[in-house]
């Protein structure tokens, strides 16, 4: 494991300091550097707060800004932030309309955000949206649903847009829960990943193997198989997504191809090209697209494909202006 760092212990803090200083017109540290917040809060708007372990950058700090998040709490690498951080973010960004917490469905994240929400429940109105878009995790007998992975970006973008447009807390909570039913992701890794703290790879693949159904914490996936060509991999992923999505009455969707950190953009576009054709052949028009490295697992080689069904409302929310470090457009 070779990394540009001064030591595993200070890595996250040093990197966040660089991030905030590079984007200081847009973001700033919250009290005690416990979180990164939007520089200019919008009074009366519901505050959208997310967070999670470090190692997924640009998510979530890269999504702080106009039209998306008000604050992001970063934990240690692959480790949930603690309630202290979330409590501080709530206290600083709630301008009166309450806070919506967007939490990826990992027990650690869920419990830490939950403890924060319980702690402040007397003082702030809080709702929580749990993101669980990972198709692969569905096979597991697990009782409480899938993992939250790259689809989180879409949930944060759309909820951020709705909040910006004036939705109230109850409306956002309802929208968030509805979004979760329309977003499905599946990922494939070509390499494991080394956590700086332990300097050991989470799993190791042979030169001709890939790991199918991985999440974004370098954890092993559903199964391992010989690597295949792009057409085969894409159709395996797309079929799994379509099968899991089941019956629906959308005819248009957003297609997100997301790199895990170690896979260069051209390969993402190549898979996007195949996946788009496959989805369109199945009757779903790809009305919007996003291709890039957004929800990562340190420098893991691999990618995920996310399909997000769109209706008039969600299309509009996706198109709404966003101005953050990692995602920006103006329509």
């Amino acid at each position, binding site marked *: 494991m070779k990394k540009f760092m001064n030591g595993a212990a200070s890595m996250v803090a040093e990197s966040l300091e660089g991030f905030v200083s590079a984007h200081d017109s847009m973001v700033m540290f919250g009290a005690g550097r416990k979180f990164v917040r939007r520089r200019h809060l919008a009074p009366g708007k519901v505050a959208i707060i997310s967070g999670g*372990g470090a190692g997924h950058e640009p998510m979530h700090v890269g999504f702080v800004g106009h039209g998306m998040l008000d604050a992001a709490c970063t934990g*240690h690498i*692959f480790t*949930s932030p603690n309630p202290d951080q979330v409590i501080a973010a709530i206290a600083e960004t709630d301008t009166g309309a309450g806070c919506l917490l967007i939490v990826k469905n990992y027990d650690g994240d869920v419990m*830490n955000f939950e*403890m924060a929400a319980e702690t402040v429940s007397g003082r702030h109105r809080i709702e929580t949206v749990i993101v669980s878009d990972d198709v692969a995790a569905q096979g597991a007998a*697990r009782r409480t649903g899938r993992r939250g992975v790259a689809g989180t970006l879409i949930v944060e973008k759309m909820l951020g847009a709705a909040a910006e447009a004036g939705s109230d807390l109850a409306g956002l909570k309802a929208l968030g829960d509805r979004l979760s039913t329309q977003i499905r992701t599946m990922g494939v890794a070509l390499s494991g990943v080394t956590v700086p703290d332990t300097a050991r790879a989470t799993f190791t693949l042979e030169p001709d193997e890939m790991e199918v159904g991985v999440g974004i*914490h370098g*954890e092993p996936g559903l199964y391992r198989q010989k690597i295949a060509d792009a057409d085969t991999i894409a159709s395996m992923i797309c079929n799994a997504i379509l099968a899991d999505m089941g019956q629906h009455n959308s005819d248009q969707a957003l297609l997100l191809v997301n790199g895990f950190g170690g896979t260069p953009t051209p390969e993402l576009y190549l898979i996007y090209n195949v996946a788009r054709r496959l989805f369109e052949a199945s009757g779903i028009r790809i009305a919007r697209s996003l291709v890039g490295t957004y929800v990562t697992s340190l420098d893991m080689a691999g990618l995920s494909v996310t399909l997000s069904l769109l209706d008039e409302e969600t299309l509009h929310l996706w198109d709404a202006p966003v101005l953050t470090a990692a995602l920006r457009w103006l329509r």
Partner: protein
Amino acid sequence: MQINRALILGLIETCHEVIASHADDLCELDRAIGDGDHGTNMRRGCDAVYLDRERLGALPLPQALETIGTMLVMSVGGASGPLYGTLLIEIGRRLGARQNGADFANIVGEAIEAVAKRGRAQAGDKTLLDVLYPVHSEMVRQSALVHIAERAQQSAQLTAGMKAMRGRASFLGDRSIGHIDPGASSCALLTTAICRYLKEYHPA
């Protein structure tokens, strides 16, 4: 008050020491079916507590436990922080509010229930609860400390046969079978260390 202080410091040191010396093993277990950080997480929490041990030693035991629990929640992160934190916070609170008659095993039992509620987990889910529950039954049975420790270790071993239903390992489905749960392992290590310490501290 002198005894209280020695006990708190002793327990903190014991736990700190056992986690520090097994952090790599715990990470290794977590690498197999999780994200490889359980040892790092636990060490971070124990380090924070250890650093503050002088202040903690000055508190009454119930308050010390509650404070330690909160410190774990605020420093560990990950799944294990809220779980171990809840355990200690709940034991501490109940110990502080204890009426004459409420026995320690009962209190621990209630705290374990709070942990299960926090984790939405139950026995057999392949988590630290699969050590906590058996440890609690031995306590209820007033088993000797060595027996409690042995039972904790056996119970951790038994998680290898289970299929994970909660925590990161649950995403692996059947692939989680055959590996010891890291949280169960840290729990058995801590139980054993604490039992050994109490035995030396209050030799039978």
